């Protein structure tokens, strides 16, 4: 493991900027979001848990797919430098890798070029994900339900812990190791540092609520499709969609044309399966017109369908949906309700 004194962070950011566009948590009004920074002073050091997840660095809120005019169709210019993300939590890093599976490798068919999303791939290519250990987990955090935790290095290129005096860093991938090796202010850690790291980790772990064993959640969901339990679970949801917008793994989008005469553009923008009009067809038929069905869809997609296709949950336990929901739909409670539910045998 390596370290550099915290006062050298500005220099580290400058060093990264030689090769990368650097993104970090930045204050935006009263909230904190991931934005591109030009200088270290813009970083909001007080919070790691941003309101909106960093997925928008590679999958923006709205994005031009192409513009068109008399001369034909033009796609937007490619990103000139790859992106480096500083200050992500482990849950966000894992989410980013999951999203990459979806956009770059749809349905596990990497050989099928036509299913790859060039807009994501262009922005994500050669990116550097720097995960910062979560020293102050929130009570809403439940990443440890997914075999993760505040000090989880999975998916990171570099793993960082903010100590009292130093930043401790570990290169996880060859790319991460190379980047660290190129920064002259790094030194090797000593025994005392290892002690500090152990203490920080045990404090962070102690703040986490004990995890719930997800057990056979996926299979259980497969058995309760018609169960009246969904009426109970979904009764209070008002389909506002806030959960989907702040979620780091949600990736549904809408495509819309905006044009006048023979000039215009086609854009894609965030959407949510929670909205009533999501599946409404031109004929007027709507397969999911009932709000309970939409709540069921969200939960089934994240904890059952996605597992079928990608062998992992479409959730990393970041807790943003719990914080933001206006009617206190707490996914942790919902999952527990599903796991505890006794299926009544139906008489046919």
């Amino acid at each position, binding site marked *: 493991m390596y370290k550099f004194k915290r006062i050298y962070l500005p220099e580290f950011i400058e060093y990264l900027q030689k090769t990368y566009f650097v993104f970090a948590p930045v204050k935006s009004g*009263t909230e904190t979001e991931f934005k591109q920074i030009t200088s270290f002073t813009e970083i909001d050091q007080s919070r790691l848990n941003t*309101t909106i997840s960093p997925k928008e660095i590679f999958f923006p809120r709205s994005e031009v797919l192409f513009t068109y005019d008399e001369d034909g169709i033009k796609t937007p210019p490619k990103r000139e430098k790859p992106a480096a993300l500083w200050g992500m939590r482990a849950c966000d890093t894992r989410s980013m890798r999951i999203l990459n599976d979806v956009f770059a490798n749809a349905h596990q068919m990497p050989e099928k070029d036509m299913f790859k999303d060039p807009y994501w791939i262009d922005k994500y290519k050669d990116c550097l994900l720097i995960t910062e250990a979560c020293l102050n987990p929130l009570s809403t955090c439940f990443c440890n339900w997914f075999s993760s935790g505040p000090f989880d290095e999975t998916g990171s290129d570099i793993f960082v812990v903010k100590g009292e005096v130093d930043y401790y860093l570990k290169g996880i991938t060859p790319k991460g190791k190379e980047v660290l090796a190129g920064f002259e202010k790094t030194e090797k850690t000593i025994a005392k540092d290892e002690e500090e790291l152990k203490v920080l980790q045990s404090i962070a772990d102690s703040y986490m609520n004990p995890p719930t064993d997800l057990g056979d959640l996926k299979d259980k969901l497969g058995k309760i499709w018609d169960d009246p339990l969904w009426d109970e679970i979904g009764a209070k949801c008002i389909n506002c969609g806030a959960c989907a917008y702040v979620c780091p793994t949600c990736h549904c989008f809408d495509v819309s044309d905006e044009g006048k005469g023979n000039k215009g553009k086609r*854009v894609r923008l965030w959407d949510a399966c929670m*909205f009533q009009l999501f599946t409404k067809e031109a004929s007027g038929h709507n397969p999911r017109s009932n709000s309970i069905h939409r709540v069921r869809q969200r939960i089934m997609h994240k904890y059952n369908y996605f597992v079928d296709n990608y062998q992992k949950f479409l959730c990393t336990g970041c807790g943003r949906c719990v914080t933001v929901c206006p009617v206190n739909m*707490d996914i942790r409670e919902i999952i527990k309700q599903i796991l505890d539910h006794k299926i009544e045998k139906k008489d046919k």
Partner: protein
Amino acid sequence: MTELQNKIKELISNKTLDLVIGWGNGSMPLVSTPMFIKSEADAEKVIFDPTCRNNLATYLTKDKRRLGKDYEKIGIVVKGCDARSVVLYVTENQVRRDQVFLIGVPCHGVIEKKKIFDLTEGREVLEKKIIGEKITLKGREFEITVPLHDVLSDSCLGCRYPDAREFDLFIGEPRDEVEVKGEFKVVDDFEAKSSEERWDYIKDEYSRCIRCYACRNVCPSCYCNECFVDQNDPQWIGKTPEVTDNIIFHLIRNLHLAGRCVDCGACVSACPVNLNLRIMNKKVEKEMKERFDYTAGLDINEKPAMATYCENEKQDFIMG
């Protein structure tokens, strides 16, 4: 058990009502959760305290309109603003008065989570205690006690009608209209700024909007089957979160709320990026009051303001 719990238990057990919508304890210290009470056991879990933010009237319309098909009469626990929403529904023919049983509760304001967030400088509150007029907030390494007044929602600070004026049952004694100073302070302060300052502020603020439509979806007054924003024939505004489209979305939504917004604060509470939404709402409300002496949801026999013509209205905008 509290009087509220007892009364609801009674209504359920004597079969006056099969469903009562109220609030219960949330999964986090600063929030409550809407509860669908169908049994006496459920009734014992009902609460009413400053965390009861949600306007439960919203469950009568939108998607939940089907509740009206499943239940002849639905009970709802209502604060002053919530009751005004129900009155609005009756005047707009969305719900019949005999389809709802209103249980009024005495409201002294609800907590605004975001104000607490500012107070604790972003540190999470793990425990709260409200004793009298004070609230104590405890976190991992802090404990703060402040007057409850300091963390109440801005909507509550300027609220004239804290108790339901239309109800079937009231827990306690309902107060009538309450004296309030600076009801439109947020508007007056803003209007005092220069035109440039105001435009810059609106541009900065609304460029943060992510067009998640949480404000519209939680709003009890927004229950159109197809919102103007979702129409594509014609397409009124662009769907992307560009600042011009964002501003137009909020402007039009607020104009559609003229004479209909009850300032319950649901939109402010639901916004994930904490936009200053009340600035537009309150301005429209102020205009309605000054031009037409109209406040939404007060009189169940009144016709909706924007659907009525009175000969002696102010016409100065026509002739100058």
